[in-house]
């Protein structure tokens, strides 16, 4: 690499420095502070701050709401990511070849993932409403039962999942399409000469060649779904037994019960989960970059 004129270290750190300083100040510091808080009894309503050792963590582990929140979050991540992946990939297969109006269809399908999650899920409350919601009116029109989407304890999480799937299936579709388009045509031509069956082509060519990108998409979605907060807030509120994710639980503990110390402990738990996901993600993109032969 030609280094060009003026190689003073001041110049290069001048370019990258401001961003690095801001990111450190806004991330590393709060993170450390959060860990410190999790060992104290800090209360938003005031009072003397004292170290309480592991008390917040032992309390958290004995809380049944904690276990419920973990189960709900895990269930939410697994169901949403799987459903979005399958649906998104099927849509990508359907949209793969040229057809009239494809750019328009594609753009419309991609819109939901760009919109504000909390605003759009608030609007979904109107569609899902048990009495006057459009969904139940459509179901009634074709003679199906009309479930109480927003108030039935067995259905609330399903409703949130439905909105999440509506919002994020386009994401999986977009990345799947990129994966499909990157498969060289000549591989398919060779398979055709070998008279391979459609299913065999799909299983031995299409799926394995798309897998790295699908993995990337799953990791991105999963780390995002782990933090699920906006939809829960908009559809059932933070303190609903059946839909309380870890983030919603943290919100409840800190902003309704003012237990900052305990909330910080919840924060640490979410962080650990997200860091695990993010680490796998980073490893994964390193591998993809290596495969593409691109330099990082």
């Amino acid at each position, binding site marked *: 690499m030609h280094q*060009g004129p003026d190689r003073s270290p001041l110049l290069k750190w001048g*370019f990258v420095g401001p961003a690095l300083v801001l*990111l450190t100040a806004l991330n590393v510091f709060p993170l450390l502070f959060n860990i410190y808080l999790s060992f104290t009894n800090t209360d938003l309503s005031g009072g003397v701050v004292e170290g309480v050792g592991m008390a917040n963590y032992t309390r958290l582990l004995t809380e049944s709401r904690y276990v419920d929140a973990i189960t709900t979050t895990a269930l939410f991540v697994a169901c949403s990511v799987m459903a979005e992946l399958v649906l998104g990939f099927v849509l990508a297969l359907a949209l793969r070849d040229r057809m009239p109006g494809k750019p328009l269809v594609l753009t419309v*399908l991609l819109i939901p993932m760009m919109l504000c999650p909390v605003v*759009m899920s608030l609007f979904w409350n109107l569609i899902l409403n048990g009495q006057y919601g459009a969904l139940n009116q459509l179901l009634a029109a074709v003679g199906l039962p009309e479930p109480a989407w927003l108030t039935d304890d067995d259905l609330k999480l399903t409703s949130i999942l439905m909105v999440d799937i509506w919002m994020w299936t386009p994401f999986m579709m977009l990345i799947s399409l990129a994966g499909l388009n990157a498969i060289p045509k000549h591989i398919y031509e060779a398979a055709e000469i070998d008279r391979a069956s459609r299913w065999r082509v799909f299983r031995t060519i299409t799926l394995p060649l798309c897998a790295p990108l699908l993995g990337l998409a799953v990791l991105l979605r999963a780390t995002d779904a782990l933090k699920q907060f906006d939809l829960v807030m908009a559809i059932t509120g933070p303190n609903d037994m059946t839909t309380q994710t870890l983030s919603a639980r943290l919100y409840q503990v800190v902003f309704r019960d003012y237990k900052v110390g305990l909330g910080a402990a919840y*924060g640490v738990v979410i962080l650990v989960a997200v860091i695990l996901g993010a680490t796998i993600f980073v490893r994964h993109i390193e591998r993809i970059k290596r495969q593409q032969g691109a330099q990082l």
Partner: protein
Amino acid sequence: MKFLRVLVLVPYFLLASFPLFWLGLTSLKSYEDSISNTVKFVPSAEAAAPNSVRFQASFEAYRSLAQPVAGTPNNFYQYLGNSVIVGVVSTLLAVVLGTLCAYGFSRFRIPGSKDWLFFILSTRFLPPLGVVVPVLMMYRSMRLENTHLGLVVLYTGFNLSLAVWLMKGFIDDIPRAFEEAAWMDGYSRLQTFWRVVLPEAATGMAVTAVFCLIAAWNEYGFAMTLNNYEATTVPVYFAGLQGNIKGVPWPQIGAGMVVFVAPIVLFTVLVRRHLLRGVTFGTVKG
């Protein structure tokens, strides 16, 4: 195969676009029509019977956006103004800092550059709720709570990682020969950056700005927990209307949502070729 494709695409397209279609219709209804027990999906000019599928369409809900909804101190446009200020300022800052940083990592040998880049990326994965407590306490002691500046700083930080990674992708694509030619002509490093690199990176900066703006525009967690009144953005305002004592004013909310969401739809159309890059931090170029 063609039949199968239609079988997948048509129902999904109808289902996926329905909420957007319904949002548009709701914004044209009266409150009674918006929660009617009959599906009202045919707009008409004159009044319709309560059990008809028709409803009288009007722009009343859009006009009423200028009035505060019962229980809120301000009208919709004031919250929209907050969203615009916070979104635009934080986007500009993130794009400027991100472009500088990306250029630095793209063209200089920086010790530990790989680790720095992954540190930058990892900040994007931090759950807002995981750091909101310390941020809130920091903001309280610095009096940044309930201010536009507080949100601008947070959103700039939040978007910076995306800006750096996207811009690095775009700047890496600019041939170095352009800069080398400029050096031959005696340009300094900064002159080259300003006159050669920036014009080439303009499209990338615009695309990056759109993604940063959308992220800031849509953000809810920080905006809600750090603001009770001064700098309340639109998502927080709408979420607060949920418990409205007079019943949720769906047509007004719908009209406000249309106004709030329309620019994002427009931006999505504008950057559709770069969507893939945007949602994968520039790692997949499509």
